[in-house]
């Protein structure tokens, strides 16, 4: 805590707040707002009731009308702050409202006669209340667990396969000597220039031919070999001292042993970076799963979320809540592995 405080009090010259400090802090604050504002907005909005979501002007905190149970009334009554004709202000419960007239009673004295006030004279009393039902209800109806499991399987399996295949390709391109190595590298990098939308249909046809439609393998396999990953790992492997590889060759290690026992352990920082990227890509992937997954039992989370968005109406409160649920795992991965990301990216020379 102390360290955070001293970090926040850093200035260019100790103990003096110069204009550069003010500018820097303003710039950083703007960055924080830009980056965390939407996330915070999302999280708070996911806890609003549907009525509060549609309110205009929107409120930042999830607010709901405060209600009170009054003897003699079956339903809880809305509490309002009312300016009475004599000028005093009182908290009253609204029994009913007809047109511009509201009938109110004093909750402290329910037996007293009702007061009729024009609706401009009353102001609803609101309190912060979290609509947890946004989370609990879809978790019951919506097969969140199943989608979550599907997403998890896709992400983990695809990441493992990606790491394995990409590291082997990178090993071949960085360390193994063979004819046509540069041509192979150029082709791998060349595929970076082909966007997924262009190959979507051909890949779909291939996947269909293989009978993989509506299986998770259809999502896992096509994207397993990423040119980005191959390139990233290759660049990192090039920085490994050549002597190490030659020492291993002298030590009678086979190519496979050099790969698995020398190169892989030393490439861990780059592998961590690629793993994090792969997890984010796979977890957030939408277009391709949408194309190949049509049965709800194989939906991933992202496709499942799409179900809240109907043609005629969108259940925003559920959609927002489930979006938060979907974001959380990636955010956690990031929080715990960000140390690797920064060192790994710095080491691979990738920006």
């Amino acid at each position, binding site marked *: 805590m102390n360290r955070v405080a001293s970090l926040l009090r850093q200035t260019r010259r100790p103990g003096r707040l110069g204009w550069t400090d003010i500018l820097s802090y303003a710039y950083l604050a703007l960055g924080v707002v830009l980056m965390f504002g939407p996330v915070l907005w999302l999280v708070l909005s996911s806890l609003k009731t549907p009525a509060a979501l549609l309110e205009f002007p929107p409120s930042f905190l999830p607010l709901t009308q405060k209600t009170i149970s009054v003897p003699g009334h079956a339903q809880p009554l809305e509490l309002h702050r009312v300016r009475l004709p004599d000028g005093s202000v009182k908290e009253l419960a609204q029994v009913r409202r007809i047109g511009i007239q509201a009938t109110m009673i004093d909750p402290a004295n329910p037996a007293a006669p009702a007061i009729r006030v024009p609706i401009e004279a009353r102001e609803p009393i609101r309190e912060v209340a979290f609509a947890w039902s946004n989370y609990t209800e879809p978790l019951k109806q919506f097969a969140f667990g199943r989608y979550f499991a599907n997403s998890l399987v896709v992400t983990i399996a695809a990441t493992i396969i990606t790491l394995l295949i990409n590291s082997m390709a990178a090993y071949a391109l960085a360390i193994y000597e063979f004819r046509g190595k540069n041509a192979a590298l150029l082709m791998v990098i060349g595929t970076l220039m082909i966007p997924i939308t262009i190959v979507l249909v051909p890949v779909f046809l291939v996947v269909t031919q293989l009978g993989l439609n509506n299986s998770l393998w259809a999502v896992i396999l096509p994207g397993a070999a990423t040119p980005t990953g191959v390139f990233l790992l290759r660049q990192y492997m090039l920085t490994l*001292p050549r*002597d*190490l590889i*030659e*020492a*291993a*060759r*002298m*030590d*009678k*290690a*086979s190519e496979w*042993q050099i790969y698995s*026992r*020398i190169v892989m*352990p*030393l490439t861990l920082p780059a592998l961590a970076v690629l793993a994090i990227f792969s997890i984010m890509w796979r977890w957030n992937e939408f277009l391709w799963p949408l194309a190949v997954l049509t049965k709800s039992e194989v939906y991933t989370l992202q496709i499942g979320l799409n179900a809240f968005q109907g043609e005629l109406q969108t259940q925003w409160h559920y959609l927002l809540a489930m979006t938060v649920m979907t974001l959380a795992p990636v955010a956690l991965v990031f929080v715990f592995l960000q140390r690797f990301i920064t060192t790994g990216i710095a080491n691979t020379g990738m920006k």
Partner: protein
Amino acid sequence: MAGLVLKGIGKSFGPVEVLRGIDLDVADGEFVVFVGPSGCGKSTLLRVIAGLEEVTSGTILIDGQDVTTERAAERGLAMVFQSYALYPHMSVYRNIAFALENMRLPPAEIEARVRRAATMLRLTDYLDRKPGALSGGQRQRVAIGRAVVRDPKIFLFDEPLSNLDAELRVATRKELAGLHAEIGGTMIYVTHDQVEAMTLANRIVVLNKGRIEQVGTPLELYNRPANLFVAGFIGSPRMNFIRGQVTPEGRLVTPDGKVTLPLPAGHAPGAEITLGIRPEHVLPAGGEAPDAILTVDLVEKLGSEAYLYGTLADGTALTLRSPLEDPARRGDSLPIRFERQRLHLFDAAGLAIRP
């Protein structure tokens, strides 16, 4: 243990010829040092022997068997790299054991061999450490241990001491000599440091521009260098050279005629000759007739001895070793004599003229 024969080894990187026509015989159990200036091809030659580089031409025989096309792993050699090339993610034990595991030896045998090597190299206390937690000298010993443990046919060392500080280098040099005496393997050692070469080698191979200039025992190279290059390369400070022409009287005169020096008899008048003499064989004239007068430019006192750097009348630089108590100072003119039996003579092509 095995002998090594190189026949006509050539190696080119594209248009650049790095090695040309290397012929060499290394006997079983011999300690051979490749020495030469940087870029002379000595490291490449070692890598060719190791199998890390393919030859462009020629044959390599190990133990009488042609291994020219065999890969590094199949040749049964061990190499100690300049950077040590220890596997940073493995403990010292695993580093040493790695090759043995690749050879699929039984675990008990691996354990025994690693322990034995560790004891020999005083590494027993560090077996669980990672290379990053070791000092330079310890890393060096691990690298040697990794080679020793395999019981290779030939040990190859690629400038193994160049990353150590001066003191440790001397100590490790002694250890290497001791190691060779103890296990008696065939060792090939590359260095640019001629002191290492002189102290370690049974035989030295002097390389220059991809060719072998001379092969011989350290003292042979020192006392009877075959050419100007070897004469200049071996010995520190380097040998003094005075270029000149043979006069009709059989003396040597420098091109500008300012210095004439005595020569042994038997040289044709008019021949271009370079006279070489080591600093320790240049003596103050004392009472005798001086061969030349040296103007002292610089005096270096090394504690045990002093070196005087000066110039002759024609501007040729000359170095001589003198006792520490020599009172010579900068600017002094010193009459000097050359020890007659220690003169080295080279012809116009730079080859030694042997009587």
